[in-house]
C-alpha cells in the first residue's frame, strides 16, 4: 500500500465534476499525520473553521519512532476528529470533500491517518483527494498571508527546500543535499537533552535568545543547495567538550547554531530570488515559526525591496487545515482520487504534482 510509484500518482484521474462548478461554498476536511502531529482541519472557501492538533511528544534525548507515532495517531484520531467537527459546527453531511496527506512522511503514521480519512469518506459517501504535504504548506501559507507568487522557503524536520512556481509546477531551486535543517536542530537538542515539549526547535530558540558568544562552525552552501550533516557532526562532537570546559554555554551554542544554519538558508533563498527576479518571500514549515529566522529573512527582504510573508505556529507547524486547503484547490479544478489509489508514499517530491489550480 505504501509504495505507489510517482508516475501512477501523476496519472491521477481527473474528473470534471459539474457540481463543483456551482457557486455553493465548498467545505473540505483535511487529515494530516505524516510526522509526529495528528491534525484535522475544516476549511470553507478559504476560511478556517477548525484546526485541532495533537502532538506525540517523546522524552528528552529521544526522537519519535514510526511505530509509536502511528500508535499515537490511532489513539487520538477519533477525539481530534470529534473536536474538529464540533469546533467548526459542521455536520458530516455538510462536508464536500475529504483530503488526506499522501506523503512525503513516515510510512506508518501516514498509513494510520489515511485509513481514518478513507473510512470517513466511505461512511459519509464523500469524494477523496490525496494531497502532497509540501504543497499543503505552500497553499496554506499563500492563503493565510495573501502572498501571490512568492519564492518559498520550506523548512521543517524533514524538508529544506527553496521553491518557486513556474509553468504549472512548484519547482525546487535549492534544497539540502543531506539532512533537513529541522533534523539538524532536533538532533542537537538531543545532545543537550532539551525537552521535546512543545518541540525541540522551540526550546533551542528560547536558549539561543540568551546566547552571547558566537562560535564559528562549518558553513556549507553549494550554489542554491545547502548541507547540514558536516555541521551537525562538528557540533555534536564539540558541544560536550566546549560546555564542560566552560568556554561556551549551551545558550551560546544554540545561538551560534541558529545564526549559522539560518544564514545559510537566507543566502540560498536570496540567491533563488535573484535568480527568479522575485519580490515576495514566504516561509513555511515547522522551523518557519522561529522568530529569529523570520527576523533575518525580513532584513534580507527589506534590503532587496521585497516583502516577507510568514505565519505563526498554528499554520507553520503541520496541521489538518493545510491539507484541506490544498485539497480544496485541487478539488475545485476537478481533481478527485479514486478510492483504490488512495495510498501513501514516503517519498513524494514537491515538483511531482501538476499544479492545476494556478495559471
Amino acid at each position, binding site marked *: 500500500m505504501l509504495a505507489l510509484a510517482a508516475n501512477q500518482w501523476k496519472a491521477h484521474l481527473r474528473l470534471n465534476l459539474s457540481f463543483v462548478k456551482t457557486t455553493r461554498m465548498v467545505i473540505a476536511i483535511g487529515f494530516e499525520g505524516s510526522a509526529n502531529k495528528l491534525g484535522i482541519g475544516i476549511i470553507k472557501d478559504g476560511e478556517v473553521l477548525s484546526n485541532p492538533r495533537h502532538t506525540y511528544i517523546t522524552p528528552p534525548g529521544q526522537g519519535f519512532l514510526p511505530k509509536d507515532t502511528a500508535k499515537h495517531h490511532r489513539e487520538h484520531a477519533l477525539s481530534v476528529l470529534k473536536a474538529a467537527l464540533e469546533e467548526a459546527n459542521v455536520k458530516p453531511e455538510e462536508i464536500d470533500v475529504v483530503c488526506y496527506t499522501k506523503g512525503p*512522511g*513516515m510510512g506508518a503514521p501516514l498509513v494510520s491517518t489515511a485509513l481514518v480519512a478513507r473510512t470517513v469518506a466511505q461512511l459519509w459517501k464523500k469524494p477523496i483527494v490525496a494531497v502532497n504535504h509540501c504543497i499543503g504548506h505552500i497553499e496554506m501559507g499563500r492563503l493565510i498571508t495573501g502572498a501571490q507568487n512568492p519564492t518559498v522557503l520550506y523548512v521543517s524536520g*524533514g524538508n529544506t527546500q527553496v521553491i518557486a512556481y513556474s509553468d504549472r509546477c512548484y519547482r525546487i531551486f535549492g534544497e539540502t*543535499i*543531506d539532512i533537513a535543517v529541522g533534523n539538524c536542530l532536533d538532533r542537537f537538542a538531543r545532545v543537550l537533552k532539551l525537552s521535546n515539549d512543545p518541540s525541540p526547535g522551540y526550546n533551542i530558540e528560547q536558549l539561543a535568545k540568551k546566547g552571547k558568544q558566537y562560535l564559528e562552525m562549518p558553513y556549507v552552501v553549494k*550554489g*542554491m543547495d545547502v548541507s547540514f550533516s558536516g555541521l551537525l557532526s562538528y557540533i555534536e562532537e564539540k558541544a560536550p567538550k566546549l560546555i564542560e570546559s566552560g568556554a561556551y554555554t549551551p545558550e551560546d551554542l544554540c545561538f551560534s547554531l541558529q545564526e549559522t544554519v539560518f544564514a545559510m538558508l537566507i543566502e540560498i533563498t*536570496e540567491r533563488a530570488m535573484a535568480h527568479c527576479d522575485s519580490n515576495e518571500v514566504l516561509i513555511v514549515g515547522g522551523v518557519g515559526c522561529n522568530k529569529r529566522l523570520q527576523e533575518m529573512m525580513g532584513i*534580507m527582504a527589506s534590503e532587496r525591496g521585497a516583502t516577507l510573508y510568514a505565519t505563526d505556529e498554528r499554520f507553520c507547524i503541520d496541521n489538518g487545515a493545510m491539507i484541506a486547503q490544498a485539497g480544496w484547490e485541487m478539488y475545485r479544478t476537478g481533481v478527485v482520487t479514486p478510492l483504490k489509489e488512495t495510498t501513501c508514499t514516503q517519498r513524494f517530491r514537491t515538483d511531482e504534482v501538476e499544479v492545476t489550480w494556478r495559471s
Partner: protein
Amino acid sequence: MAVLQGAEAKLYVGDFYGRPCIMKERFVKNYRHPTLDKALTNQRIKSEVRANLRCKISGIQTPTIFMVNFETNSIYMEEIQDAVTVRQHINTVQASEPNLSSVCEQLKPLAEVIGQTLAKMHTNNIIHGDLTTSNMLLEGDPKDLSLFLIDFGLSSFEASAEDKGVDLYVLERAFLSSHPNSQDVFDCILAAYKNQMKDKSASKEILSKLDEIRLRGRKRTMVG
C-alpha cells in the same frame, strides 16, 4: 553607478588606468552575525581571486583581476566587453527556434565547450561551487564559443570525486530549472566532460558520484 545588483554583490563599470573595468563590491549582509559576515566576505574574496587565477593558469578564460581592496570588499577586474551570459544566449536560441531537436543541435557545440572547460577545471582540482549558466559568459559573437567563467566566490580546491560530483549536480539543477526542456543539452555537456577527462577512472568515479548525489535529493528518507 551600480549597473547590476546580484544576491551578494554590486557591480560598477568604469575604467582602471584606461582599461575597461568592473568593480565587484560585496556588501554587508545585515541579517547575519557580523563575525560570520566578515569571515564569509573575506573568504569569498580570497576564493574568487585564487580560483580565477588558477583557472587562467589551467587555460580557462576568466576576467583578469587588477586589484583587490579588502577595506571596501571590492575586486577590480577586467570587463569582458561585448559579452552575453550563456543563459541569455540559450534563451535567445530557444526563443528563435520552436523546434526542440534543432535547438539542441544548435546548442551542441556550446555544450561541448562547456563540458571541456569544466573537465579542465576539475582536472586541476578547482571546484567552482556555483555553476550556473549566468556565471558563464560568451565573448563576442556567441558562435565563436569564446567561453569565460566568472563568479568564483564559492569556489574551493578539492581533489575528491564527491566535490566534483556536487559541482556538476549544482550546474544540472540550475541548468534544468533555468532552461526547460534542456536535458539533451545538459547530457551533451556531461558527454564532453567525460571525453575531455584524460583520467578515465576519475571521470567514471565523478559521474557515478553524480548519480549517487541525484538520488540523495530525490529519495532522501524524511519526516513531514
